[in-house]
């Protein structure tokens, strides 16, 4: 099948996408019991009568999970329901020990949000509606490939708290879905409520996608696509599923509502194994948990703990006359900004600090895969180094050498510069001596330069720098040579 044919199939159709994002909340313990949420423990170690669903065990809501859910709600500006209801979602599956998942159905903890996903469409910012955010518990894991003809069940994840954020079906392309997810994740990371690690499953995306002819108001039949383990995987899966549905419609068929799995390795969509009774979850209010009541005082308390969010930080940095690129880089994750600002507090020039943070420092963070605050680089030492450059004590290239030393040494930047002979020579006599020597050693070029061939200044500066083993201050050398030409 040629690419051209596939493209043709989608012509005339509009993609409609709604996303359900499951976010694992960063609590120490599970949603309804005291078991650890630690990822990677031996199978079934983090379990107790409650999350194993032993007869007689009862759930008790983790207050910290509620607090993190409220951070999500307030961080995104959702409307918080003063009274929300937990419900049971009933279905049989071996990794769902109670035979029901505790979730929220009719009355979630938060509803009605809007998210600016940072794209301009026809000059207008794209804003996607968010239907709701509700609290629920995770299921365990079924492992189908461990034993021949048997499924293993690991219940460590059973009962881990989640917030599910459900969008309106308002995205119209894989690109918009990707932008929505990246914006969402960035804010979630700023809110510090989840690791948002798709590979470990602390952020999971289910996509509802349908196709309809352009101009049609009624939504087409949607299919749910699961099992994407990256945002680009979501984008590819959406494109593939959209093509499949368009193909069905073009051929005169109708799309059957179903759940599909994305196979990222093969780049294919395939039907999911069906779960018994999944069509009717028989939701009803969870009688073991009273309604969740959120007081204004509690909301106010959580609101006070909210950190600065990306949009506000971007605006503040833009006001420092930083470039769009610098602003984006400095605000991409929540940790860069505080480091940037810690350095900035000790060194006034935002642009040069941004250059260092977005350049050398980020390279180290990425290379070492470390956290900004875990790096053995105190902001004060970086500020001192930038000061040395500003004051002409060291050259930019020497500063890079000193920077490398800062990470392995406890010496001050100036001490390192002196120790390694990286302090620029600014002494007029020494500089004049080197200039004289160079001019003497290169009489032809010296004569041409003296005769007014100004472009030779670069060559001559370079020769002086070489003679000084890089220690001469090039600016002063330049000035000296200029004075020789005119003098």
């Amino acid at each position: 099948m040629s690419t051209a044919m596939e493209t043709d199939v989608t012509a005339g159709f509009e993609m409609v996408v709604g996303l359900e994002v499951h976010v694992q909340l960063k609590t120490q313990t599970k949603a309804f019991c005291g078991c650890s949420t630690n990822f990677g423990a031996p199978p079934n170690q983090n379990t107790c009568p409650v999350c194993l669903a032993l007869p007689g065990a009862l759930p008790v809501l983790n207050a910290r999970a509620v607090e993190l859910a409220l951070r999500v709600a307030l961080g995104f500006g959702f409307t918080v329901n003063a009274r929300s209801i937990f419900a049971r979602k009933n279905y049989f599956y071996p990794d769902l020990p109670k035979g029901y998942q505790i979730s929220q159905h009719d009355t979630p903890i938060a509803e009605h949000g809007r998210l600016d996903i940072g794209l301009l469409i026809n000059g207008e910012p794209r804003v996607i509606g968010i239907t709701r955010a509700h609290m629920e518990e995770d299921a365990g894991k079924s492992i189908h490939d461990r034993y021949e003809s048997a499924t293993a069940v690991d219940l460590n994840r059973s009962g881990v708290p989640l917030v599910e954020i459900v969008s309106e079906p308002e995205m119209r392309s894989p690109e918009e879905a990707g932008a929505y997810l990246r914006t969402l994740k960035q804010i979630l990371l700023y809110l510090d409520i989840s690791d948002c690690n798709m590979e470990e499953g602390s952020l999971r995306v289910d996509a509802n996608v349908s196709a309809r002819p352009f101009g049609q108001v009624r939504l087409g039949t949607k299919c749910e696509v699961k099992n994407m383990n990256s945002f680009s995987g979501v984008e590819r899966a959406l494109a593939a599923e959209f093509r499949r549905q368009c193909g069905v419609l073009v051929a005169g068929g109708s799309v059957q509502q179903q759940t599909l799995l994305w196979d990222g390795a093969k780049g294919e969509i395939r039907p999911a194994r069906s779960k018994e009774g999944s069509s009717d979850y028989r939701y009803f209010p969870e009688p073991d948990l009273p309604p969740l009541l959120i007081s204004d005082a509690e909301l106010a308390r959580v609101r006070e703990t909210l950190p600065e969010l990306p949009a506000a930080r971007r605006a503040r940095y833009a006001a420092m006359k930083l470039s769009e690129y610098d602003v984006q880089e400095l605000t991409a994750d929540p940790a860069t900004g505080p480091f940037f600002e810690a350095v900035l507090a000790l060194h006034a020039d935002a642009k040069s600090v941004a250059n260092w943070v977005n350049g050398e420092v980020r390279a180290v963070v990425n290379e070492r895969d470390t956290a900004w605050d875990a790096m053995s680089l105190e902001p004060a030492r970086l500020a001192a180094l930038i000061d040395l450059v500003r004051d002409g004590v060291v050259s930019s290239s020497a500063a890079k050498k000193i920077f490398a030393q800062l990470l392995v040494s406890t010496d001050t930047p100036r001490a390192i510069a002196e120790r390694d002979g990286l302090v620029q020579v600014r002494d007029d006599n020494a500089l004049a001596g080197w200039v004289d020597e160079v001019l003497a050693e290169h009489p032809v070029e010296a004569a041409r330069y003296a005769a007014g061939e100004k472009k030779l200044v670069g060559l001559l500066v370079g020769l002086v720098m070489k003679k000084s083993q890089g220690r001469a201050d090039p600016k002063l050398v330049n000035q000296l040579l200029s004075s020789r030409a005119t003098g």
Partner: protein
Amino acid sequence: MTAQDVLDLSAAQTARTIADRGASAADVVTASLARVAANAALNAFVTVASEADVRVAADVAPQGILHGVPVAVKDNIATTTLSTSCGSRILAGWVSPYEATAVSKLRAAGAVIIGKTNMDEFAMGSSTENSAFGPTRNPLDHSRVPGGSSGGSAAAVASGACRIAYGSETGGSVRQPAAFCGIVGVKPTYGRVSRFGLVAFASSLDHIGVFGRSVDDAAVGLQVIAGHDPQDATAVDVPVGDYRAAAGRPLTGLVVGVPTEYYPASLDAKIRAKCDRAIDVLRQLGAEIRTVSLPHTDLAIPVYYILAPAEASSNLARFDGVRYGPRAAADDLSDMYERTRSEGFGPEVTRRIILGTYVLSQGHYDAYYLKAMLVRERITQDFANVFASGVHVLFTPTTPSPAFTFGARSDPLDMYLSDIFTATANLAGVPAMSQPIGLVDGMPVGGQLLAAHFREADMFCAAYALEHALGPEALA
């Protein structure tokens, strides 16, 4: 005093006698086991503790209010020392790795658990005929049922094996067998006793309740298990009153409501006469008797048989053969579920799971579950209105008939109507208790007292006085 004699003392006196070294706790619990053995024909117990185990437990029992007092516990309340099978094949022999909060409190008070009592499977029934381990017999007449679902606990107390036993109530499963066996049965306010470790039937209606040979036994029995529990989100954090303080208190100023709906024209005249007599006694004791109305009473049974099965269908989903209990051989997953559950559950449990699944299904939820929840609010409001009007307690018959013979209620609907006077208190969450008020055709009849939420003390006040005034007439 022999250990056998000590068994016939009240629970509080038993503990005191042991504390005063009038008897050894180990000998008392051994005597209790002997009574269990002598009454083996009742089939009151699913599991009986060994003599060695109870003697050790008695020796190390804390010197609390129930020091050395033998108690029996219904087989749906989790204990680590004895299995918890809920009267079901699907949990036969299952031993819990943790204990119910009520059991921990019992042990802390010094009680010794002599065994786990028989019950209708998963507490679904009113006769203890639905147990996978055979029916329990009424100690007063072996041809009759002891009531249910906590029939084993009622029979244990009525046969003299122990003065206190624990049961559970979802629609009357303590009060009805107490009435049938001529003893006292108490269902506290919803949230007064932790449900942690009570195997759920219908969570919003389930309560742990207590049987006593006397009002005082029941009061002590409730006293030790009442209280807040951080492991049960529906347990309420209000102070626990002193239930025994009401003993001997005059009834002057107490307003007793008599709700007309509990005395329908169809009520057995002999039962009505016993109730009238009890009401007269209360009046003579100084209580003001007031006729009141709880207009939604007749909706209680239909509402109950929608809500209880709905919750049960979900609560019993965990019995799936995956983590515990027997697992049937099968070809695939859904086959495994189907076979395991078909083989594990008896017919009444199966019936209620199907009923509950139906009423929660798409297209039926609004008509059944939602409507039933609205009516439940009306029933709760009925009680709130009556208690707000100045009434302290209500007095009604506990059951529409005395204990019936085995097989007499083979139609499920007939059986369901056994709970007609008791299910209201579970729906509203108010405390209620039954005590014997006389015999009809040789079998005991129960009188029921109900009070406002967390007003157990009002109920006990009337109960102590009525018990004292009736004296031997209560079982005559």
